């Protein structure tokens, strides 16, 4: 089951880190980085049912 309740201990710290890895990147580079990040996270989750729910959740 996809967790949709808060699950990250320090939300502000994580958000900051997420933005920082994009610093100085062009639009294309950021887009590529995000794509890699999605793949890395998706592999970590692994569970196809959870991934399907995540895709659904992201879609809106």
């Amino acid at each position, binding site marked *: 089951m996809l967790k949709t309740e808060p699950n990250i201990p320090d939300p502000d710290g994580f958000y900051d880190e997420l933005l920082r890895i994009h610093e100085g990147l062009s639009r294309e580079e950021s*887009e*590529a980085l995000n*794509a*890699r990040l*999605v*793949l*890395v996270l998706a*592999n970590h989750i692994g569970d196809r049912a959870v991934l399907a729910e995540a895709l659904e959740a992201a879609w809106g």
Partner: protein
Amino acid sequence: MVQARYKTAFTLYPYEKVPQQDAAPTRHPVLIVGGGPVGLALALDLGKRGTPALVLDDHEGAGLGSKAICFAKRTLDIAHRLGAARPMVEKGVTWNVGRVFAGEGQLFSFNLAPEGGQRHPAFINLQQPWFEKYLVDAIDAARAEGAPIEIRGANRVTGMARKGDHVALDVDTPDGPYRLEADWLVACDGARSPLRDMMGLDFEGRVFEDNFLIADVRMKADFPTERWFWFQPPFKDAGQSALLHKQPDDIWRIDFQLGWDIDRDLELQPDRIRARVDAMLSSQTGEVPDYELEWTSIYTFQCRRMKTFRHGPVLFAGDAAHQVSPFGARGANSGMQDAENLAWKLDLVLRGDAPATLLDSYAAEREFAADENILNSSRATDFMTPKSHASRVFRDAVLRLAGKHPFARPLVNSGRLSVPCTYDEFAGFGPDALPGGPAVTRPGAACPDAPVGNGFLLDHLAGDFMVLALGAVADGIASENPKVSILSVPEPDAALRARYLGEASGAVYLIRPDQHVVARWDRFDADALDAAMARAMGQV
């Protein structure tokens, strides 16, 4: 007159005039149009069962030039049952190491070490004309033992008409036209299928806008027997992707993905091809080895299939029925599965042992298989030539990650190896009454090979319905059913256990003539067996 449409590599069935050409139309039980891999395999399978098969082909042998080179294990297993596999494996090249490159660097390599306990490797590389030649050799051997198979070369079908209970054909020959009739007509006449056109039938799917340049080069140099695949090759004018693959007789298949908007004549100029090949072959060592261009061509491809493969007494098989992109080598390999699916059913129907509706299961099962093949090769194509901005972004992300992280490597798709499809949820299969039984051998699956005694399991599945009894339940079982033979293996070895028993201590399998599992149980029950068999034969 029959004008050749292409050159042949071997003459296999030279034209000979037969008395039927001067007689009133003769009725044949099965007429097969097309002597490619699919038509030949079908004729051989039917003939070995004693059902007469007449093949008409408008040439006199196998076409010259670059077509299939990768033949998968399932194809070899089928060819083995038909008595044609040994020379294929002997002549073919077996390779294990593959390397994937992106741009300048190698991303990763893999080793396809063969799975133990099986007669055949995952696949071999062999030029299609040889594959066809060995099928014809096996047909000749079967005929010498009385199999009723006939191949008529330089016999071109120019017209057809459905007449109530049969089909009438117009055939052209070097001695002029004649007519034939058939109870069943099987169109194995290739991607451009004239029969499909004559019947005005539809063909649905995607055409991919891409051109591939093939160069088969002969090279004596000491070059590793590996498969090399490049995404975005760094060498000049190599296109979007490139492939290097070994074939027998010091021949290498080189493939360049050129894109859509190209000048074919220009790209086929030998100088231009040599410049590309030089750049590829020297990319890893800096030196261009000695080589000769054997054959070059440019091809495009499509992924599509007919809506249905059966139209009354006319059945479609192979490329005539469906086409896929070459990535994953699913063309001839899936066509061979069409042939084996159809052969035993047609044989039973002609003998009056099964109703004609059994042939609808051919269509349903192989349409499903075609969809699976089309899905697989479309996915490979989408990875190799991303069709949208987002798909390119993710493709490039996968490639970049794959160099460093093993997790991304399974996402890299330069074609998935052809494997037989499992007929899940189709009528005519089941029950699955083997608690703890492995998924690979569930009803609908093609039997994987495994050692039995001094040989292999598939040697025993020679073309009839079979009962395979394993473990303790194998003792003293007998079936009253004359159409089924029993193979008992009271003490299966580890590989056989892993593939057929899983957690169970014993099992009884019912297996179709095409080596697909019908049903399985944890004990022998003669009534359940007869009922499953009747369903598999379309009798209920």
